């Protein structure tokens, strides 16, 4: 007896199908018997028909047109009547056994299942279940019986669906096999309560009712195994945990099932569309024959309704709201509409969708029995001057107004007004005049920038009503891409995993900011499919890694998962950096940790990877550390975008950074980051910049983006921003010499010394303010050794060795040490003493290949001769 039900229209929808083993066996037997009977009846029909034909043949075929054949007894007559009876019997059998799916309740949303209380007319929802779904329930019972379980639970239902073809598709797209989840499920099955015979638990009954409810909500014809699978998953937290262990969360799971639904809906729509397309004319003539031939229009345009009938246009997914708005404007007053949206957000797809709806005549009456024709402005103006182009347009409009069945589509309507020349103005005026006289109406497209700059305040802007087409969100974009994947798979002979689809949308949305969803995701998917087909061969699986690799190659940002080599490198970043930077452990550790966080995605996606302010005296290694990070992790020192802030001392210098107003080029900073989004930005000597310039960075530090003068938003979320400053140097040196604690120094610096230079809100936005300690003699000694290594590596290319005696190194370190200027004097000293002496030796020819130059105390060198060949 059912315990739960869904009330709707004074009826109660319940699950009341007997699914125990004996009923299942009986249903199977009935199904087989029905098929056997159909076969027997068909066989009988064929045999009897052949006998009847043979007997008629013997008597002559002319005879069947005589009354005597039908009335006078003959064996031929016996068999003819028997054949007809047999045919009627077969028809009756098929009509009785072929299941007719009852129509789903007409409702947007059904109420949640409630306990059965009062008497109401019961409707068994199993009638709405597909054969696959019913068999899944039977398998669930079977499983519970075989295990001796007391109840059939959502887990049993879930396992019951796994054998169906659609769920096999779900598993393969998710990159799973049943074996991967078999073990925990097996363990869970062992913990069930035992008892005989198994009965349907209340939670399982809820799953069945929820599956029905979901099917009604989705407007599908019957409840499929996938609905059952999804509802069992939603009902059972254990199953959600099992999938989560395999990297599949509820959103991914839901999107994967949506993929199945989209596929099913597209198939259904295609069938309906084909039927409707049969009666839609494809030429210039409409069904009522009121239109006229339009030869000139045909030469400069494309008939979108014809293209839709021929199946050349893509199907529209998830854009009901926009379509509704467009129709509302059109119906409101037959007004022309301009779709304003960025490149790639789906304006053309929307127009294609309208063309398809026109084929099905599922449009407002003003659009019925009409054709949608896209005028090509380049075709219209090619090879003629402005006045001739205007003349052509007038003729086209004449044809349109006479034909009366044409709705115009003008892509990029800003083309008509963009040149600002007299000719363009004439075209715009001609169009406005034609449309305002009610010749027809038009659907146009343009971008937001072009609309603001050219259309809005022009005469065209007055006659077109704006409908904003915004970029779809990630979920919608995933659904749109899912609808396109079938075509891409067919073209390239590859198979997409769900992860690949999701990554194409999410990574392109995150890292490619100059194009828009869904187009950029579709293009990435297409490109990856081609690449995978070439490298992995036919029927290869396109994975998330393949998508990430393509996005990395396009943007230069590492998006693939961390490999073994990179893992080792990341874990030993500090060691690598200390190869070039001596001391300054706090700064090195902070940078290394930030890079590790960034690479393992444990950071905010809407801010730069890290922002640091390095404070300290000159020559302490601030810039050197930035260069080291650029070399060790970003690949090269060139990956560092360096801005000497001393060049930005007045407010007007902001134009150099963001671009000159009115120009089409971005600024030094914005262009550099746009071209290399994965890089280090070094703001050297920050205290020298004008305070207003620093305000620009408030937004960068907070939101990870900056808009240049051309209106482009530049993404800073993949940059590390390091600002260096000498502010408070004197205090640092004094405090260090007094032996004060570095944490105390930092606090005092921020609270006192820097207050007059940087505003508190600016300092607060840095992830870390790091104080570089002045170098001591020991540090300078270590740095001297590094310099000696650099000299040796420079000579290595000439085949000459180099060695510095310990005493020489100590002497150089001692002479090069200056507490005020850090390692800078040392660099000069090495240049003056060591490099000069080596240069002289090379010029005099005293040092040759295989020789070793030895540096001695006092800046002297001697040559150790190498072996002679």
């Amino acid at each position, binding site marked *: 007896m059912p315990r739960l039900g869904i009330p709707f229209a004074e009826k109660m929808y319940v699950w009341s199908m007997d699914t125990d*083993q004996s009923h*299942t*066996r*009986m249903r*199977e*037997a*009935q199904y*087989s*018997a*029905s098929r*056997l*009977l159909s076969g*027997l009846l068909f066989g009988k029909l064929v045999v009897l028909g052949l006998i009847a034909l043979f007997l008629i043949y013997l008597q002559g075929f002319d005879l069947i047109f005589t009354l005597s054949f*039908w*009335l*006078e*007894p*003959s*064996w031929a*007559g*016996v068999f003819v*009547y*028997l054949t*007809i*009876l047999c045919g*009627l*019997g077969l028809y*009756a*059998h098929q*009509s*009785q056994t072929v299941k007719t799916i009852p129509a789903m309740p007409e409702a947007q949303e059904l109420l949640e299942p409630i306990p059965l209380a009062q008497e109401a007319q019961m409707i068994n929802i199993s009638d709405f279940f597909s054969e696959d779904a019913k*068999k899944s329930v*039977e*398998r669930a019972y*079977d499983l519970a019986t075989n295990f001796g379980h007391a109840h059939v639970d959502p887990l049993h239902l879930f396992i019951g669906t796994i054998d169906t073809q659609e769920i096999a598709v779900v598993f393969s797209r998710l990159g799973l096999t049943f074996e991967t989840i078999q073990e925990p499920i097996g363990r869970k099955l062992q913990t069930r309560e035992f008892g005989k015979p198994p009965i349907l638990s209340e939670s399982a009954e809820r799953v069945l009712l929820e599956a029905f409810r979901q099917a009604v909500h989705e407007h599908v014809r019957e409840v499929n195994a996938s609905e059952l699978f999804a509802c069992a998953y939603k009902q059972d937290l254990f199953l959600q945990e099992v999938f989560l262990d395999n990297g599949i969360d509820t959103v991914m799971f839901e999107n994967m099932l949506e993929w199945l639904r989209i596929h099913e809906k597209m198939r259904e729509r295609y069938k309906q569309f084909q039927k409707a397309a049969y*009666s839609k004319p494809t030429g210039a003539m409409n*069904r*009522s*024959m*009121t*239109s*006229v*031939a339009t030869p000139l229009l045909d030469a400069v345009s494309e008939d979108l309704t014809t293209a839709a009938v021929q199946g050349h246009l893509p199907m529209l997914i998830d854009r009901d709201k926009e379509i509704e708005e467009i129709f509302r404007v059109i119906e409101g007053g037959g007004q022309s509409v301009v779709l304003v949206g960025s490149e790639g957000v789906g304006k053309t797809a929307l127009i294609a969708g309208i063309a398809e709806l026109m084929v099905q005549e599922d449009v407002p009456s003003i659009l019925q*029995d009409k054709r949608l024709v896209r005028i090509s402005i380049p075709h219209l103006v090619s090879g003629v001057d402005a006045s001739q182009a205007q003349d052509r347009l007038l003729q086209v409009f004449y044809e349109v107004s*006479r*034909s*009366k069945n044409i709705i115009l589509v003008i892509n990029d309507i800003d083309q008509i007004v963009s040149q600002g020349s007299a000719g363009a103005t004439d075209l715009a005026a001609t169009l406005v005049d034609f449309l305002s006289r009610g010749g027809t109406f038009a659907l146009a497209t343009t971008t937001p920038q072009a609309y603001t700059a050219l259309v809005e305040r022009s005469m065209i802007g007055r006659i077109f009503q704006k409908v904003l087409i915004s970029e779809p969100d990630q979920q919608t974009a995933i659904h749109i891409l899912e609808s396109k994947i079938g075509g891409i798979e067919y073209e390239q002979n590859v198979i997409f995993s769900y992860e690949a689809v999701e990554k194409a949308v999410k990574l392109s949305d995150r890292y490619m900011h100059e194009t828009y969803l869904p187009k950029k995701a579709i293009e990435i998917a297409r490109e990856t499919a081609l690449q995978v087909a070439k490298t992995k061969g036919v029927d290869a699986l396109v994975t998330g890694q393949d998508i990430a690799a393509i996005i990395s190659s396009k943007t230069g940002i590492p998006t693939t998962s961390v490999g073994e080599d990179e893992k080792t490198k990341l874990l030993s970043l500090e060691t690598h950096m200390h190869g070039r930077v001596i001391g300054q452990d706090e700064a090195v550790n902070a940078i290394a940790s930030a890079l590790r966080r960034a690479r393992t995605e444990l950071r905010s996606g809407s801010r730069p990877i890290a922002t640091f302010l390095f404070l300290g005296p000159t020559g302490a290694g601030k810039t050197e550390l930035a260069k080291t990070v650029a070399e060790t992790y970003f690949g090269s020192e060139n990956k560092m975008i360096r801005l000497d802030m001393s060049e930005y001392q007045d407010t007007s210098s902001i134009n150099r950074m963001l671009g000159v107003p009115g120009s089409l080029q971005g600024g030094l900073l914005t262009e550099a980051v746009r071209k290399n989004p994965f890089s280090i930005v070094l703001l050297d000597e920050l205290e020298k910049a004008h305070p207003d310039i620093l305000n620009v960075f408030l937004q960068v530090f907070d939101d990870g983006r900056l808009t240049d003068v051309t209106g482009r938003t530049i993404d800073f979320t993949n940059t590390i921003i390091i600002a260096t400053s000498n502010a408070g140097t004197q205090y640092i040196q004094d405090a260090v010499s007094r032996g004060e604690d570095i944490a105390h120094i930092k606090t005092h610096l921020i609270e006192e010394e820097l207050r007059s230079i940087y505003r508190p809100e600016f300092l607060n936005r840095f992830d870390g303010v790091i104080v570089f300690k002045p170098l001591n003699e020991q540090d300078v000694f270590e740095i001297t050794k590094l310099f000696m290594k650099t000299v040796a590596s420079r000579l290595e290319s000439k085949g000459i060795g180099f060695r510095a005696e310990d005493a020489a190194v100590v002497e150089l370190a001692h002479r090069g040490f200056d507490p005020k200027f850090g390692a800078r004097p040392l660099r000069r000293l090495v240049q003056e003493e060591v490099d000069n002496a080596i240069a002289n030796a090379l010029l005099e020819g005293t040092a040759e290949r295989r020789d070793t130059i030895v540096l001695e105390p006092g800046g002297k060198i001697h040559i150790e001769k190498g072996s002679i060949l």
Partner: protein
Amino acid sequence: MTKPSVSLILKITIIDALREGLLFPFWWYSKGLRDIFTKLFACAKESVSFFGLDIWAKNLFVPMYGETSFTGRFVSFLVRFFMVIARSFAVGLWMFILVLIGMISVVIVPFTLFGFFMHLIGMFIS
């Protein structure tokens, strides 16, 4: 999955065959005919738009091919008038065929049974 035995399948097949055979006339004059008439009715309903009769009738006074002159309008009206008649005739013919199928459906069972037994008995008597 639990598989049914062959004997069970055969038993059900025989029972179903007998049941369907015996109940066939009752089924035919209840649900069978109702299904057939539903299909015929849907077919008839579609025929008007299939032959475009509704569109032609609605545009009876609308000039064809954009010819808005008096002659154009007059010729258009004449052509449309005859087209409406021709299409009505086509729809009528189609309706007639559907009605014929409906009538045959009503009488086919007794007619076939009568014919079969008449021929069979006749052959045995002769």
